[in-house]
């Protein structure tokens, strides 16, 4: 599943996370519009530098967990009080303490599966998905700062180019993705 290229991207590769971090800070100060930053590992301080809003994945997780909790608890309640009531060991039909382990397990199960599926969906990832990558060393030891130059004027392009040069990017390339 490869989509056809529709974007022109100008990117530079940095050798260290401190270099790219200060470059991102500078780009924000200069009001340059960053397309994206690609790094081999999560760089501390990058979310603040990029001014990314906080991930709401944990809220989704809470909702999935709640669904799991209700499914388990209400499901067992319905089965043991109305669908097929059976007395086990002289305990009441609705023996809540005995429902706790399964309720807990399904809460965790639903939250985990739901969050993982949500994560891959919103990131546009999944089995068999091939997303365009800018450079093969981004997952190795290079830190990439990219600008979208699809409809950019020549003046803008040279502005990006000189910004990358000034901030210490080593390899500067334009690529269609």
């Amino acid at each position, binding site marked *: 599943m490869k989509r056809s290229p529709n974007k022109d991207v100008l990117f530079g590769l940095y050798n260290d996370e401190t270099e790219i971090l200060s470059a991102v800070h500078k780009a924000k100060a200069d009001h340059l519009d960053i397309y994206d930053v690609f790094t081999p590992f*999560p*760089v501390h301080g990058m979310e603040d530098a990029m001014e*990314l809003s906080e*991930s709401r994945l944990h809220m989704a997780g809470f909702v999935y967990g709640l669904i799991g909790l209700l499914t388990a608890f209400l499901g067992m309640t319905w089965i043991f009080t109305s669908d097929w009531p059976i007395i*086990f060991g002289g305990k009441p039909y609705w*023996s809540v303490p005995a429902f706790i*382990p399964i309720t807990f397990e399904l809460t965790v199960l639903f939250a985990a599966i739901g969050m993982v599926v949500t994560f891959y969906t919103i990131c546009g990832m999944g089995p068999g998905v091939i997303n365009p990558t800018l450079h093969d060393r981004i*997952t190795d030891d290079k830190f990439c700062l990219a600008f979208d130059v699809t409809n950019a004027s020549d003046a803008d392009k040279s502005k990006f180019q000189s910004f990358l040069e000034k901030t210490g990017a080593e390899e500067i390339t334009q690529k269609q993705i």
Partner: protein
Amino acid sequence: MSGHISPIREPLITGAKTYHQITEDICGPTERMPSRAWMITFVLAVLGLAFYIFCVTWTIWVGIGSWNLNRTIGWGWDITNFVWWVGIGHAGTLISAILLLFRQKWRTGVNRAAEAMTIFAVICAGQFPLIHMGRLWLGFFIFPYPNTRGPLWVNFNSPLLWDVFAISTYFTVSLLFWYTGLVPDFATVRDRASGIRRKVYDFLAFGWTGSAKHWQRWESLSLILAGLSTPLVLSVHTIVSFDFATSVIPGWHTTIFPPYFVAGAIFSGFAMVQTLMIITRKVLHLEDYITLEHIDSMNKVILATGTIVGVAYLTELFISWYSGYIYEQFAFYNRLMGPYWWSYVGMMSCNVLSPQIFWSKKLRQNIVVTFAMSIFVNIGMWFERFVIIASTLARDYLPSAWSYYSATWVEIGLFIGTLGLFSTCYLIFTRVAPVVAVAEIKSILKNAGDQYVGMKNAHKEHAHAEVEAKSGHDHH
């Protein structure tokens, strides 16, 4: 950048690695032809797996009668093996979840392999209840699903059913957690590969790009999965212990079981991690990533949990005497002095006495001693489960029903067979996936690499600070 790191902290990555060198070191083994040692071990493992399949087939063909279980002793090697494997499966998630929440940086060196071990151990554990059912093909009856028999539901009040939910949830969540951690590393392998390998890793990497937003979500997801897995890992062995503790059998019906089982599980899990890590780091040359410092830390966990288990054993003995209840007193007298006294001795010496050598730092950092100890602990924890199960059942309320039990070749074969199953899975894992979490190791390099921290850098930093202080003085 990430807080002040004490210069005297021991480095967790040695050899003054660069980011690229880390990639080379860890992805390298998946790109080379396997070594002769790997091939020989793999052939042995597959033979074990084949023997396992043979024993399962035999059990189903002939029936459970091919085992030596009898009317008195209804659980034997099968449930012993089940609890043993589940216990081993606890270290991985403990390392990756609880140690993540506690910000223990040494976890990054071992979490990947330990999680893989967890998943394979749970697979092995899950085999035994299924085989024990006898009619394997009706295994799906354990799940509540709308059926044409009423619908007739499962018993939600039964700890055996809680176990089904606990183990399957644990397996699923561990697998998701592990794979999500693997995706960026598969992308690293993908970007180094070409041809058919590239296609395979393209699929496995799920289209990972390393975008800042994706990393942010990935970290958020890892943290929440860790938060969810922490109570989960504690719940699993708690529920396994309920299989015994909620019964009315003297020796099983005790409230100490949940914490005692969880401590034992962590104990045996870490022992298995040590066994595997010591071999893996040697064979794949990962001594720079799985250092003596890591082995030392894990030995401390083994010492702590082994001692907790020891306290639990002694508490059990004391409470049985103090209860004044003769059946309870007899159950424990029987464990020490009954027909299975040798397994009690094995358990006590392997689990409680031998780990005490780890009070010595020198022994904690000795590879040979650690490896031998890890095997001892594995054996000891197997004995513990055998003591709980077989010795308790052999002497029940009616002396006329007292019996003795020893395994047949089929039961022993099933156990050895699961070792084959486990080793096969683990050996394949070391060939296709980076055995150490590449991205996570890179993210701790600057505050755990030996060119940045450690005693020899402490002097440097000290000198540096003095120079700075002097030059600051000069300016005034």
